[in-house]
C-alpha cells in the first residue's frame, strides 16, 4: 500500500463564536490559503480536493459547489463527505484513500463549519426530528418527562447518561470531569487556534451550574466558526515538495447503531460502551504496526464534545486499562509534559466548528509531530506515534487515524 503523509495544515486565523465579517466561502478560503502558504504550495500542486461539513448547520445544500472557486478547486476532481461529528476525519480519510489508491498524488482536504449562520441546537435535534415526532404522536412528553421515551439530559442530551454510566463503570468521580475540563481549557489558553482560551482552574469549572448531573456548563463544548485544511501527499511526492511531513499510518472507522436516538426501534447499546471505538482502534493500530498502544502511542487527540469523554476514549482506544484514565489524570500523565499528553490542543471541548472538529484532531497530531505548533502547547517530548479520534452520529460513528514520524514499513 502507498504511504501517505500530511505535508501542510491551514486554519482560519481564528475560531470564534461568530465571524460577522465574512461569508461562508470567504471563511473557508482563509484556511485554504493558509494551507498553501504554510508549505509554499500552490493550487497547481493539488490533484484533487475532498470537502466536508454538516450542511444543515448552515442550511446550504452541497456547499462545496458554491465554494468551488474559494477552494481553488476549479477543473479538479472534487468530492463531498459528510458523516456527522466525524465529518472532519472522514474527509481526511477520503483524501488519504484518494492518494493510497494511486488515483492521485497530492490531495487537499477542506473541512469547516460556520455555526453562527444557523442554530446548532436545532441542527442537532434535527437528527431525530421525524422519529421524535412519531414518539410525540404516540404520547411522548418530549421535555416534560412524563411517560416513556423522552430524551432527558436537557441540552446535553444523552451525554449525561453516558457520563454517569462511564463514571459508574470506571470508578472516576464527577470531580475528575472538572479536573479534565480545567486541564483542557488551560491547554486551549496556549493554542492560538482554540476558541475558548481562558486559563481555567478546577474551581472555575466547579463554579458553573449543572445542566444535567453529572454534567455542568463547564463540561460542555462551544459552537464555533472556523475551517481547517490539510494537504496530503504520496511518499514520492513528499520527497519532492514537502519540507516537513507527518505520516498517516493507520486509518479506520466503525459504526454501531443510533444507540441513543433510535427511539422507535429500540435503543440497543450503553452510550458509554462504544464498542465501535475498540473495533476501529484495533484496526488502525494493526495497520500502523502498533502492537502495544499503551507503550507506543506518545500523544492522543480525542473528540470530546463533553469533558468526561476524554477519559472515556483513553480507555476505549486502549491507551490505558478500563478505569485507569482518571488515575493517569491524577498523576499528571495527561498534561502537555506528561507521559501521554491528551488534547494538548484543548480538544473539541474548547473549539468546535463541528465539520472541522474531527479534522483538528489529526492536524494537531501532525503539527505536534512536525514540531510546527504555534503558541505554547508544543509537546516537549519527541512524538513517534500519535492517535487521533473522531466521534459522531447518534453516538454511533467512530473514526481513528494513527500518525507517525516515520512511514509504515512493509
Amino acid at each position, binding site marked *: *500500500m*502507498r504511504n501517505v503523509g500530511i505535508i501542510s495544515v491551514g486554519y482560519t486565523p481564528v475560531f470564534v463564536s461568530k465571524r460577522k465579517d465574512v*461569508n461562508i466561502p470567504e471563511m473557508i478560503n482563509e484556511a485554504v490559503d493558509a494551507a498553501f502558504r504554510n508549505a509554499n504550495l500552490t493550487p497547481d500542486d493539488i490533484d484533487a480536493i475532498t470537502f466536508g461539513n*454538516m*450542511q*444543515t*448547520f448552515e*442550511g*446550504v*445544500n*452541497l456547499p*462545496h*459547489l*458554491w465554494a*468551488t*472557486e474559494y477552494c481553488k*478547486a*476549479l*477543473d*479538479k*476532481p*472534487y*468530492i*463531498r*463527505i*459528510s*458523516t*456527522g461529528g466525524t465529518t472532519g476525519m*472522514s474527509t481526511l*480519510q*477520503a483524501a488519504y*484513500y*484518494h492518494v*493510497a*489508491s*494511486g*488515483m492521485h498524488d497530492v490531495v487537499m482536504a477542506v473541512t469547516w463549519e460556520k455555526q453562527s449562520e444557523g442554530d446548532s441546537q436545532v*441542527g442537532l435535534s*434535527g*437528527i*431525530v*426530528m*421525524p*422519529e421524535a415526532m412519531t414518539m410525540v404522536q404516540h404520547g411522548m412528553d418530549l421535555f416534560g418527562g412524563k411517560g416513556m421515551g423522552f430524551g432527558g439530559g436537557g441540552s446535553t442530551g444523552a451525554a449525561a447518561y453516558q457520563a454517569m454510566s462511564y463514571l459508574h463503570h470506571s470508578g472516576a468521580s464527577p470531580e475528575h470531569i472538572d479536573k479534565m475540563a480545567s486541564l483542557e481549557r488551560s491547554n486551549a489558553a496556549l493554542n492560538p487556534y482554540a476558541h475558548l482560551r481562558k486559563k481555567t482552574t478546577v474551581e472555575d469549572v466547579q463554579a458553573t451550574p449543572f445542566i444535567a448531573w453529572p454534567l455542568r456548563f463547564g463540561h460542555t463544548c462551544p459552537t464555533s466558526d472556523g475551517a481547517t485544511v490539510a494537504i496530503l501527499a504520496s511518499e514520492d511526492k513528499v520527497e519532492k515538495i514537502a519540507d516537513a511531513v507527518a505520516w498517516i499510518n493507520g*486509518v*479506520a*472507522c*466503525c*459504526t*454501531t*447503531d*443510533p444507540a441513543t436516538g*433510535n427511539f422507535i426501534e429500540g435503543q440497543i447499546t450503553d452510550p458509554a460502551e462504544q464498542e*465501535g471505538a475498540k473495533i*476501529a482502534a484495533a484496526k488502525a493500530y494493526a495497520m500502523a504496526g502498533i502492537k502495544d498502544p499503551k507503550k507506543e502511542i506518545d500523544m492522543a487527540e480525542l473528540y470530546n464534545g463533553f469533558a468526561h469523554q476524554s477519559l472515556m476514549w483513553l480507555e476505549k482506544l486502549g491507551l490505558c486499562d478500563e478505569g485507569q484514565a482518571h488515575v493517569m489524570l491524577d498523576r499528571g500523565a495527561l498534561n502537555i509534559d506528561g507521559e501521554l499528553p491528551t488534547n494538548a490542543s484543548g480538544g473539541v471541548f474548547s473549539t468546535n466548528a463541528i465539520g472541522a472538529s474531527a479534522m483538528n484532531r489529526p492536524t494537531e497530531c501532525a503539527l505536534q509531530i512536525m514540531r510546527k505548533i504555534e503558541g505554547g502547547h508544543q509537546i516537549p517530548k519527541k512524538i513517534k506515534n500519535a492517535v487521533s479520534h473522531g466521534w*459522531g*452520529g*447518534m453516538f*454511533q*460513528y467512530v473514526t481513528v487515524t494513527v500518525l507517525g514520524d516515520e512511514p509504515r514499513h512493509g
Partner: protein
Amino acid sequence: MRKIAIVAQAQIMSGSIGVPRERMLFDLVKGLYDNVGITRHDIGTFVLCSNDFEVGHTIANVFEDTPVGAYMKDETHVEADGMWAASYAAMRLMSGNYDTALVVGNSAGATTFRPYLVMDYQLNPTYDRQMGLLNELSTAALQAKAYLDKYGASEDDLNEIAARLLRNAAMNPNAVQSKAGATAGDVLASEYLYEPLRQLQCYPRTDGACAMILASEERAKELTDKPVWIKGMGNSVESYYLGERDLASSRSTKMAAERAFKMAGLSDPAKQVDVAEVGAKFAHQEPILTEAIGLFAEGSAAKVAQSGAADIGGPMPVCPSGGGIGAYCFSAAGLVRIADCVRQLQGLAGDAQVSGAKTAVAHGQDGFCAQHNAVMVLSTEEG
C-alpha cells in the same frame, strides 16, 4: 493499480415507494446479499450516499447503517451524487485496505422531499437565493436555450430526445415516467415551464434506492462469473456562477471523461463505447453531456435525434434505460446509471438489451446546469 470489479447491483424505484426508507434499504440490500450468496459480514467497507436535505434530517446516514447491514462495521458516507460514492468505494478497494465494498444510495424525491426546493438550497444564500430568479427549471431552460442558439438545433430535436427516452423507459421496470411508442408530438403537447423547457423534457419525482457490490479482482471472480470491471474514473467541477460558463457545452464533463478514458486506455470512445448511460436531468442535457464525453460531434443533437443514432439499435445507444427522464433518484441517480450499465454488460437488460455490449460509460452530475460531473468507464473485459 489494483483491478476493481462490480459484482452485482440492485435497484428499486417508484413514484411512491410507500414503505419506510429504512425498510426499503433493508429489503433491497438483503435481496442483493442473498442473490450474490453472501452475508453482511462478507462486506469490508460500506459507502453510503444520501443527503440531509433529501432525507429531511441532520446526518442523513444515521438511520441507514443498520438497514444495509453496517452494524459494527466500517462505514462512511458521501453527500453528493451516487457516482462519487461508487468511485470513492473503488478507491478504498484500490488502496488494498479492503476486498469488498457495498455502495448504497437512496432518495425519496416523490414522497419525502421536493426536488426543486432542495435545489433552491444549493443557491448561494447571500445572492441568488435572495434574488429568487434562478431555480432548477429556469437554469435548465437557459442552458437549453444556450445550446439551441449556439448549434442551431430546434425544440423538435429536444422533443425527439425526450420521446426516445420515454420509449426506452417503457422497457425499464424501474422507470416511473414512460410511454411506449411516445413521439415528439407527445412531448410537444406537454406544457412549457420555461421556454424552451417542456414538462416531458424533465425528470420525474422519484423514490428509490440503488445498491451494488464492488470487489477486488480475486474476490470478484469468486463472487460472480460476470464481473464488470471499473476501467476508468474521472470527475471535474466548473464554476458555480452560470454567468461565467458556456452553458451550451460541459467543460467539466469533458475533463471528467478525458480523465476516465485516459485511465481506461480508450483513445476513441465514440468507436470503443458500446452503450452510454448519462445522468441527464433534462432532455437537452443529453446532447450537451454525450458531446462532452466525446460520443458525438459537438453540436450534433439535431443529426443524432433525427437519425436515431442514439437508439438502442443505433450505432451509439444512449440511456436504453430511459435515463433521467424515466426516473431520477437524486442522491442515487449516478449510481443508477452505473447499475444500468452493469445490467447491459451482464446481459440483464431485457428488451432494452444492447446486443454484444462490452464497454459502457456512465455519468453522474451535481449542481445547476451540471456544474460537477463524474464519468466511469466499465467493461466486461478485464484487460
